[in-house]
């Protein structure tokens, strides 16, 4: 006896609970709303939070894109896409412009998102203060009291030790001037994309059981001191070896033959689009 999977895997009661939590998250930007967080057929730590959000949102006519580390073909992204498609039958796409739901692990797409799109980010550790305070009991109270001295201290200590802030990805941000939020391990490069975004951004942490949100047109400021401003990763002087793009986040690869570092667009579908539109332009100009 093989049971047919329910549309979008979950029973409707589970979806309802996620939906209620999502609406609260949108009403309190940057605040981590607790939710029950059902187990999924994909492991905890592998995107169950993002997946639960996607499955609570998705309908028959949606077009879904899933990326991991910027790549549509990453095994984890493929696995998630497979599960969603098996339980919904929705159309899948690689192209950012075609999708209206985008689930991503650790990157925001290079192509700016629009008001008709929702971005769902996968979050491993939703609590920005966790590096300085292990206890949930305490961090809840710090948020309630607007006490973010721990976050500032963390940055200050880095400056004292290294002469600059040394956060890598997941650099904490201030949302709507009230909550400090973990933007998920997106590179610092992507933090500015959250500020006054046209699209709604939802963040889900399945294992930690938290949903939070950045509504469109909301202020998102990366934490920094006045004399040590926020700095993104630098790719000065470097460009994608395939499409030539320069102001995008680049992956560093080792050239097999020379042993030298080479660079390539991290956002693979963006790179593809650049190559295709350049080729189209070349074809058109050769007929001019």
């Amino acid at each position: 006896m093989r049971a047919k999977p329910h549309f979008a895997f979950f029973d409707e009661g589970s979806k309802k609970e996620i939906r209620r939590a999502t609406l609260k998250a949108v009403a309190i930007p940057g605040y981590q709303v607790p939710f029950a967080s059902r187990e999924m057929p994909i492991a905890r730590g592998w995107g169950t939070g993002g997946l639960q959000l996607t499955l609570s949102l998705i309908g028959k006519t949606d077009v879904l894109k899933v990326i991991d580390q910027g790549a549509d073909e990453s095994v984890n992204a493929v696995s998630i896409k497979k599960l969603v498609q098996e339980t919904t039958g929705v159309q899948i796409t690689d192209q950012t412009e075609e999708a209206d739901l985008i689930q991503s692990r650790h990157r925001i797409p290079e192509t700016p998102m629009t008001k008709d799109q929702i971005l769902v980010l996968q979050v491993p550790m939703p609590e920005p203060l966790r590096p300085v305070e292990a206890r949930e009991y305490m961090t809840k109270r710090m948020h309630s009291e607007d006490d973010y001295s721990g976050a500032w201290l963390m940055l200050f200590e880095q400056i004292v030790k290294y002469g600059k802030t040394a956060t890598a990805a997941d650099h904490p941000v201030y949302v709507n001037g009230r909550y400090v939020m973990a933007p998920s391990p997106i590179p610092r490069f992507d933090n500015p994309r959250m500020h006054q975004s046209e699209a709604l951004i939802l963040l889900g942490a399945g294992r930690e059981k938290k949903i939070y949100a950045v509504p469109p047109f909301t202020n998102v400021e990366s934490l920094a001191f006045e004399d040590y401003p926020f700095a993104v990763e630098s790719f000065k002087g470097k460009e994608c070896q395939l499409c030539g793009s320069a102001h995008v986040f680049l992956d560093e690869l080792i050239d097999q033959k020379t042993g030298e570092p080479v660079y390539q667009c991290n956002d693979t579908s963006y790179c593809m689009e650049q190559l295709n539109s350049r080729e189209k332009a070349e074809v058109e100009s050769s007929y001019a």
Partner: protein
Amino acid sequence: MAIDQIHDLQQVYRKLLHSMSRPGTISSIEQETENMDVDFGCADALMLSAMVLLDAEVTFHVLSKKRRDLIEKISEYTSARCVPLQEADFIIVLQEDGESEILEAMAQCKIGNLIDPQQSSTWIIETPALSNKGGLLLTGPGIETEAHLAMRQSSEFWQARDSRIKEYPMGIDMIFADGSSQVACLPRTVTAILMEVE
């Protein structure tokens, strides 16, 4: 009830989410309300919004003392429990409700606390026709510069709301539903200034 519990409710949820993320944006759920084959004695959009959000895990309160029938229908269709106002997760307001009842309810409803601001009430309010002309001037997260929403509530109503949202992050969130299957939402983050006095 010919509502598709999966797909119609999913569509209505998406519209509610869209309107809550972009306060002032009016969304139409006419396609979904068309599938309703029962008359609940209130705006279809209100009942459908309730069906999307309520279930056995949450509680609700209907302001009107004369609508036992609605309370029973909501419990029957959602399994949610009716409780006193101060405890309710969802508060249902009908057009016929008197202003003084509404103002008193707003003074007593849950607004959450600093540690758990999400433990607040969400209001689902039946209104006359929603429109983007005149009325309220809205600013805040979700709104690029400003938005306009008219829904014919009194200035006392907006003052009462102000007093409950001024201790952000505590506050209340509102869903408005009119008789033409339109919905609009006001989260607690939005500043609403009444431009015209009706």
